[in-house]
């Protein structure tokens, strides 16, 4: 019951911080709102007892991706037209289109009634259980993902080389 209350609180906070990312004028403040949004999502994952993903959320997203992004903002932060005119001229049509999308997705997803989970002794999302099962079923995908990471590094290097 306490976890349900915490999930509701963190869900409201996550949505509020997501809205702040969109409306805040300065990129650094938007980045801090995004970090708070990600931490709230990690708290939700922990309340759902999917601890391993909560750990990845904090370590990979907040710890690596957002640090990288904040560093890039500090490197590039200059005052230009996007500060004085924050939103594009397509704002009203975009908001209407997104409203239609929300209604459509809600109509599709919210009537979803998931299957009753199988009875299990221990949580499959604890770190040891997840690690063993993951490497048992997804070892090949894991190796392919490492190649994808190398391709990402090479692509970033190629973009920088293009700049020179």
């Amino acid at each position: 019951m306490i976890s349900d209350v915490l999930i509701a609180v963190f869900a409201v906070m996550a949505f509020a911080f997501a809205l702040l990312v969109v409306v805040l004028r300065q990129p650094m403040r938007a980045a801090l709102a995004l970090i708070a949004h990600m931490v709230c999502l990690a708290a939700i994952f922990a309340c759902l007892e999917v601890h391993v993903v909560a750990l990845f959320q904090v370590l990979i997203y907040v710890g690596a991706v957002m640090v990288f992004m904040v560093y890039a903002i500090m490197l590039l932060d200059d005052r230009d037209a996007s500060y004085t005119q924050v939103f594009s001229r397509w704002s009203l049509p975009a908001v209407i289109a997104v409203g239609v999308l929300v209604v459509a997705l809600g109509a599709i997803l919210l009537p979803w009634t998931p299957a009753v989970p199988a009875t299990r002794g221990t949580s499959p999302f604890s770190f040891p259980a997840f690690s063993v099962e993951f490497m048992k079923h997804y070892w090949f995908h894991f190796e392919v993902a490492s190649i994808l990471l190398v391709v990402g590094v090479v692509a970033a290097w190629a973009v920088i080389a293009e700049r020179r």
Partner: protein
Amino acid sequence: MDKYQFLIGLAVLTFATGLAGVVIRRNLMVVVMCVEVMLNSVVLAFVVFAARSGTLEGAAMAFFLYIAAACEIAVAMAIVVMLVERRGSLDIAADPELKG
């Protein structure tokens, strides 16, 4: 509405919020952040499905999404730095080569 449906509703709302940000914001860095908001909502949906069904697939998919996000941000930041050095501005409208 149980907590899983509530969280799927949250995933829909945050995805739509991120999509709205991608369309309406002019600052390149904020647009990249809004893409991250969309990606996070997808992760949330996968984790909710995994938690409800008690199976590994959703959590494994979330793990691979994190890898994709790491690659995406590395390439995106390199492109942003290149564009800003070329145009001297974070404003999307300042770059006539960008379409849409």
